[in-house]
């Protein structure tokens, strides 16, 4: 996209009521929770709504949901894309981060913010809980379990809880790369 398109695209991407969740970019905007996207083709009505957790259909074996959760491969590509745009447009190109906050940030900072939110999935938050383990008490509290981390396939679009295959190490392992980069920046 060119600069003209990039601005409105990022306005949606960085809006917390649309794509920007506390734990990364959602696969579908949260706007569609109450406003499903509807398409009528040849008398049949097709619709897709924001579904932050498990898949509601049997598509792809019933264990993949690209209609709301946070997925690492797409988020990683978005971070890389934002960094490339930053390389091209430089520090002068500012966006509101998050949208509506009034805070201006460079594209590099926007990429870093998404990276931080993704990393937060696995880290203990202020209340001592790891978002990745949601309501799993054993993993949250038991000293023999609480430091064992699963690299889930995808994550709940609102609360960051791990969903899907628990050993999707290949792409969710990208969090190691994100951490490495964020440490270098410091």
């Amino acid at each position, binding site marked *: 996209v060119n600069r003209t398109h990039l601005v409105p695209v990022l306005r949606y991407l960085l809006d917390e009521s649309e794509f920007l969740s506390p734990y990364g970019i959602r696969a579908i905007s949260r706007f569609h929770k109450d406003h499903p996207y509807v398409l009528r083709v040849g008398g049949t009505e097709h619709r897709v709504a924001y579904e932050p*957790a*498990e*898949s*509601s*259909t*049997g598509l*792809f*074996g*019933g*264990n*993949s949901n690209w209609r709301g959760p946070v997925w690492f491969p797409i988020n990683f590509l978005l971070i890389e894309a934002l960094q490339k745009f930053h390389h091209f447009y430089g520090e002068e190109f500012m966006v509101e981060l998050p949208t509506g906050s009034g805070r201006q940030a460079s594209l590099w900072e926007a990429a870093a913010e998404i990276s931080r939110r993704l990393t937060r999935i696995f880290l203990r938050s202020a209340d001592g809980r790891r978002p990745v383990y949601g309501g*799993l*008490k*054993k993993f949250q509290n*038991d000293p*023999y*379990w609480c430091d*064992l*981390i*699963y690299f889930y396939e995808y994550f709940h679009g609102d609360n960051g809880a791990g969903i*899907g*295959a*628990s*050993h999707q*190490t290949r792409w969710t392992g990208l969090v190691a790369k994100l951490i490495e980069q964020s440490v270098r920046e410091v």
Partner: protein
Amino acid sequence: MNAEENRLEESRRRKVHWKRWGPYLSERQWGTVRDDYSPYGTAWEFFPHDHAGRAPIAGGEDGLLGICDRHQLVCFALALWNGRDPILKERLFGLTANEGNHGEDVKEYYFYLDSTPMHSYMNALYKYPQGEFPYSQLVEENRRRSRKDFEYEGSLWIASRASSAACSGSATIILMSGRMSKYLKGRKGDVVSFRS
């Protein structure tokens, strides 16, 4: 250069074949398309976990926290028994696509904790309950749940009293395949025991 970087370099220059052995053994071969000989391409139903201990697997080998050579000719894996289960724990248990609300999925607790790039050092943890492993409970509860529910991963057994400790200090290696017997003078299913 540290010791592991040395090994990387030796491997790159093909001086030492450090990558010959590694954690290349599949966690499971049941429920994969490689072992699907069904007439209608129903790979998941054709070869569920329940068959894996009894029928030969053609498309590869599997095992618990296993290692093998890069051609998968010699495979080593853990086999555990808590003295209660009707079967040995030789491979990861799970459900096929239509058995649960989450689709095809392994229902086990295991963690790859550490590894060097050359696999000269690896560390993994498998949590095996000292009580009976809830095979049938996992099947039944997942069948009951709808797509609106969260998947059932057996939180009951990890919440139960005696089960949080990982079991067994001794390990047993099972000869995994006929191909392996060439190397180790045994037949498929023979048990070679040693203390780990």
